[in-house]
């Protein structure tokens, strides 16, 4: 949010438990850092760096050790400091490390409980929620599925999922454009998915930013509808490259829209030769059995 993605401090990320209706704010502004000397500090973004007081020691040529304290405003005072010279500090710090660490913890949590976590990504309006509700209804006698629902605003999608009888929490990212690993951590702590089950994470509709953020999921599943244009995979290659699976939805509309199916499949394979593709219609049910078989097989292979 304020630190890791593109939104303002007022992003107001909230988590809503759809069973209890309780809505809580996800506090992101306090965090912990380890300094190079091993000191661990926890601070908020309101920390006034300008008021930073600094105490340090210098060893003079004759061996005398001088320790003194000053604030940043006295740093350039010639009376105190005879010489200022530049020093280069090597950092090699990965910018998404904080997110990646939490994602790794999430992955361990899922693995330990045999939970198959899938991160559903697409542009808005591709049919993610419709596919999800249909999948839950069709599989609920055989498989346990729970859902973390991500949207900027409203609990509308979570409400639709809730109506299927499935456990769901809604995460509203405010002005944020994607889900992050820390939000998923809060989500499953609230949801408590049962062992040997599937956790569907419906990401914010956006084909760009979610590609960068590992949530700790087993796979990203990219959803693309035939009303969007066959060149989406090469227009947004990062997302399709990151995904293990692509689901082409709304295939019942193929006779009515100018969509070159073969070219789309070719583009997807060009970006990601290993991507597994399912062609489905959530409306008529066509092709869904292949997707369901993949879910069952993957849950079995991954967890037993």
């Amino acid at each position, binding site marked *: 949010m*304020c630190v890791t993605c593109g939104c303002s401090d007022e992003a107001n990320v909230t988590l809503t438990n759809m069973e209890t209706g309780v809505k809580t704010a996800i506090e992101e502004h306090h965090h912990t850092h380890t300094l190079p000397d091993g000191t661990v500090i926890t601070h908020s973004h309101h920390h006034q760096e300008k008021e*930073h007081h600094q105490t340090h020691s210098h060893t003079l040529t004759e061996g005398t050790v001088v320790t003194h304290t000053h604030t940043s405003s006295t740093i*350039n005072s010639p009376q105190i400091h005879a010489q*200022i010279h530049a*020093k*280069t*500090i090597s*950092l090699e*710090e990965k910018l998404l490390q904080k997110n990646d660490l939490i994602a790794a913890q999430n992955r361990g949590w899922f693995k330990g409980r045999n939970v198959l976590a899938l991160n559903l990504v697409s542009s808005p309006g591709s049919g993610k929620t419709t596919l999800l509700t249909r999948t839950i209804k069709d599989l609920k006698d055989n498989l346990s599925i729970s859902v973390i629902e991500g949207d900027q605003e409203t609990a509308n999608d979570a409400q639709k999922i809730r109506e299927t009888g499935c456990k769901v929490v809604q995460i509203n990212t405010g002005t944020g454009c994607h889900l992050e690993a820390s939000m998923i951590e809060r989500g499953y702590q609230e949801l408590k998915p049962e062992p040997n089950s599937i956790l569907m994470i419906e990401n914010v509709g956006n084909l760009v930013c979610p590609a960068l953020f590992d949530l700790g999921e087993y796979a990203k599943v990219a959803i693309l509808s035939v009303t969007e244009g066959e060149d989406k995979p*090469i227009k947004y290659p990062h997302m399709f490259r990151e995904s293990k699976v692509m689901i082409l939805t709304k295939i019942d509309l193929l006779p009515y829209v100018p969509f070159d199916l073969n070219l789309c499949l070719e583009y997807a394979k060009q970006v990601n030769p290993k991507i597994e593709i399912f062609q489905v219609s959530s409306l008529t049910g066509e092709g869904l059995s292949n997707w369901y078989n993949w879910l069952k097989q993957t849950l079995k292979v991954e967890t037993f």
Partner: protein
Amino acid sequence: MHELGITHNIVAIVIENAQGLTVKRVTVEIGQLSAIMPDAIRFCFDICCQGTILDGTTLEIIEIPGLGKCRHCGTRIPLSQPFGQCYNCGSIELEIIQGQELKIKEMEVEEICV
């Protein structure tokens, strides 16, 4: 627009490591296949630095070109997007070996001595 947040992250990490010293220059490595726009980072940097010890700090961005390696014949292929085709054997199975970097490489601070 994840670049604004990433720039916030750069500023926060540098401030922590500077421990109050004046920072003259920050060098960031961004791979050309990383889905991060250097221009957007530059645009955000000055704004993110305002009111911090990084006010006036120079941002240096090293852009690292994309490079793939063919999984079939081992040929190295320059890439401007995260996919492509081997010009030697025609395979599209390329492993990206360079161009996805996103890190703060180093920072230059003013060291004060008595």
